[in-house]
């Protein structure tokens, strides 16, 4: 088969990859684009809910001695806000972008493990419901997004609020680990022919590195929350000082995960920025190698500086000095990335559409967060500013400035690919100025509040403290940013029907996703693209180089070698299945049961085993390359 697909073959290919219609198709799909879209819609809803919580808290703090929230309600609000934003929004949304984009950027029809991706989403949804359904009936975790024992232990947190929080984490982390293995395997083994390591787009690198970091960091938080549940449920003594346990052990394990998590969120954002900058500068990214090496450097350093979250614990001074140096060192790779992006824009001939605006807003905002991070890396200075509003300002600058602003830019950038229509530039610019302006107005004063002595997680303060005016400004700014968020969502909603038609490549992008129609068909690519550079769509201007030969009458993908991406074999790709949903349900039963009785681990394993056997029971057509007799 060395000719392009005939129309009939193309139709058969499309049918092979098509989902069943209706609800059954919805429940069984393994299409990475549908799964990612689900993630993103869930995240948008959660961001709205958690944003409303934030606004509620800001109103409570706008004036001194406000009585509109009780301390219990306030504590629940920040706990739910933080847990949602960190565990259910930031990390999952970056995974969602990987699930959606990585196969498209690699010219593939599917992820390495399509059913695993479906499982990841269902399990993530289980985590979302684990936190928000109890909240709806009034059982809300109330001890922050990291629940330090003994406060969260059996002695001080009766009831199930803390268990719900801990098990919600287990849900989302299992989902995230599964997604990461999926993405990493896809990047290693399913690159298009010709995409050697040196030709991997920066975004794909960023997701592969973030996936590896996830694999080595998330087990820590699963372990530590399981230990917490065990302390609460079966009276283990991990964190009980009277029985040889140690509450600080919790902090070590939590931050072993917690710090890399920040970079797991930030690296994909740096990937978005790199892609947007390249496209809108109209030149190849300056310093590709430097940017990728910086990402690897950040990933390596990330595992050597968790103690900087614990400078006020009173650990030995020599340790503090080491972690200060290691933490500050992150400024070097991060600073190099900033240089490369600005240099690309400087030497290019940029067009300033909204995606690029978000990148500029990102640079102006994120660098403040990076520099306040350098301050917080200094052990003595951190012992003044940690647990104050300075830190609240710092991590919002890093997470919103460093991850959410690029994410919004990425959303505008790939929206036409996903929907076939462009977002409104006018509404887009309005949303940009409201969000970036409102955010900076709202969060910059918090640096000052922290230095003026305002601790975080206080539900009120007295007038005499002098924190009133700055808090009022902070509330005002947050409200403006929330309004901007609503404009952004309205724009996305409106443009779905009324935006200008985009065509396959509205921005003149350089990577493979722009070669397919918008929105892409379920099988993404008719033919397998072949890559000859970092920017294949720019170097293959006249015609795209492709290979043929994958089956059209069944689902098949090409597997290539890890380093050189030379074709190795054709892998059958699994059909839609209900097993991932059932497996996720079985895991959900097991997880929820195990906050009430340890025996859930035993009886819960039965339906889980059944679901997994149904999932993996090989029923796809058998591949028999060699004769089936005996063989060498």
């Amino acid at each position, binding site marked *: 088969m060395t000719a392009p697909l005939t129309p009939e073959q193309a139709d058969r290919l*499309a049918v092979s990859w098509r989902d069943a219609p209706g609800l059954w198709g919805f429940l069984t799909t393994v299409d990475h684009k549908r799964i990612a879209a689900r993630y993103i819609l869930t995240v948008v809803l959660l961001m709205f809910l958690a944003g409303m919580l934030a606004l509620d808290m800001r109103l409570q703090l706008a004036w001194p001695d406000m009585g509109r929230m009780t301390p219990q309600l306030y504590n629940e609000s920040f706990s739910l806000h933080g847990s949602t934003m960190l565990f259910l929004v930031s990390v999952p949304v970056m995974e969602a972008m990987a699930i959606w984009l990585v196969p498209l950027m690699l010219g593939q029809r599917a992820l390495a493990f399509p059913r695993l991706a479906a499982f990841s989403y269902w399990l993530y949804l289980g985590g979302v419901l684990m936190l928000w359904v109890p909240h709806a009936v009034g059982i809300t975790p109330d001890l922050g997004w990291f629940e330090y024992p003994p406060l969260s232990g059996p002695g001080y947190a009766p009831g199930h609020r803390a268990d719900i929080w801990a098990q919600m984490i287990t849900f989302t982390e299992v989902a995230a680990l599964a997604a990461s293995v999926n993405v990493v395997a896809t990047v290693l083994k399913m690159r298009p022919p010709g995409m050697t390591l040196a030709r991997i787009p920066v975004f794909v690198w960023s997701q592969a590195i973030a996936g590896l970091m996830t694999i080595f960091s998330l087990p820590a938080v699963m372990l530590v929350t399981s230990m917490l549940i065990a302390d609460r449920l079966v009276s283990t003594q991990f964190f009980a000082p009277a029985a040889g346990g140690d509450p600080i052990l919790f902090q070590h394990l939590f931050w072993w995960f917690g710090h890399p998590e920040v970079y797991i969120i930030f690296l994909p954002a740096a990937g978005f920025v790199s892609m947007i900058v390249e496209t809108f500068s109209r030149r190849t990214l300056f310093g590709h190698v430097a940017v990728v090496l910086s990402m690897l450097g950040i990933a390596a350093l990330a595992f050597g500086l968790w103690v900087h979250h614990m400078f006020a614990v009173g650990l030995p001074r020599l340790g503090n000095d080491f972690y200060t140096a290691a933490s500050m060192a992150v400024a070097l790779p991060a600073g190099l990335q900033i240089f490369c992006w600005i240099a690309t824009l400087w030497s290019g001939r940029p067009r300033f559409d909204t995606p690029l605006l978000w990148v500029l807003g990102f640079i102006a905002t994120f660098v403040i967060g990076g520099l306040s991070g350098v301050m917080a890396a200094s052990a003595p200075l951190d012992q003044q500013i940690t647990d104050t509003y300075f830190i609240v300002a710092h991590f919002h600058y890093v997470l919103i400035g460093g991850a959410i602003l690029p994410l919004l830019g990425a959303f505008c950038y790939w929206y036409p690919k996903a929907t076939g229509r462009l977002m409104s530039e006018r509404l887009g610019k309005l949303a940009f100025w409201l969000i970036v302006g409102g955010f900076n107005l709202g969060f910059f004063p918090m640096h000052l509040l922290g230095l003026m002595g305002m601790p975080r997680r206080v539900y009120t303060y007295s007038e005499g403290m002098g924190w009133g005016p700055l808090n009022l400004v902070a509330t005002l700014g947050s409200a403006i940013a929330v309004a901007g968020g609503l404009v952004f969502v309205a724009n996305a909603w409106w443009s779905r029907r009324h935006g200008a038609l985009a065509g396959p490549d509205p921005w003149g992008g350089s990577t493979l996703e722009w070669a397919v129609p918008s929105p892409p068909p379920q099988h993404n690519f008719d033919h397998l693209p072949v890559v000859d550079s970092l920017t294949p769509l720019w170097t293959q201007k006249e015609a795209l180089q492709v290979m043929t030969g994958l089956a059209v009458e069944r689902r098949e993908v090409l597997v290539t070698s890890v380093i050189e991406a030379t074709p190795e074999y054709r892998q059958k790709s699994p059909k839609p299945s209900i097993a991932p949903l059932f497996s996720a349900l079985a895991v959900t039963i097991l997880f929820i049961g195990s906050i009430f009785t340890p025996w859930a681990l035993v009886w819960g394993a039965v339906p889980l085993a059944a679901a997994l056997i149904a999932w993996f029971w090989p029923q796809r057509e058998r591949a028999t390359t060699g004769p089936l007799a005996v063989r060498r």
Partner: protein
Amino acid sequence: MSDARPCTIVGDVSGLPESASGAKHLVWWGNIGFMAIEGTAFALAAGTYLYLMSQTHGWPPAGIRPPDLFWPAILTLGLLLSELPNLWVRRRAIAKDERGVRFGTLGMTIFGLVLLIPRALEFAHLNVHWTDNAYGSVLWMLIILHTSHLITDIGDTAVQAVWLFTHEVGDDQFADVEDNANYWTFVVLSWLPIGALIYLAPRLG
């Protein structure tokens, strides 16, 4: 539907095989990914053990005997011996020997089930309860963590054996048997440091 861009055909992959074995196979990498996750969990759990040990005077705490050595010695020996048939099954899978993998996985299932006997007896000779103190808690955590992996892989092997005996075996299934054998090796190897911690650290510390 066709691609939006015109294209030039530069090659054809229809001649490539439909499956592969070892590190060429996609699923091999998924397997490695999950081993990395679980290996990290083992390492962090071991780190927890060492951390608590460093925070405590006397290990095990006064009045507690270290766990008995007899049954774990049997188990460790059994695990190491199980590598002989395990590696044989792995070779049979690579050689695409249908009979070999059928009886091999069956044998490995039985071997694994037998190994659960010394493991069960081990629990009875830890000489500490998980509620007694942090030492007891972390000891039980390590051994439960390992046991859950042991049981999972025996279950996996059993299901595989059932499938292999009831179906014609294809290339992908040979690759699955190979991956499962690799996973068993991971379970065996991960026991060595964990077992050393549980049984030797209280005697040295």
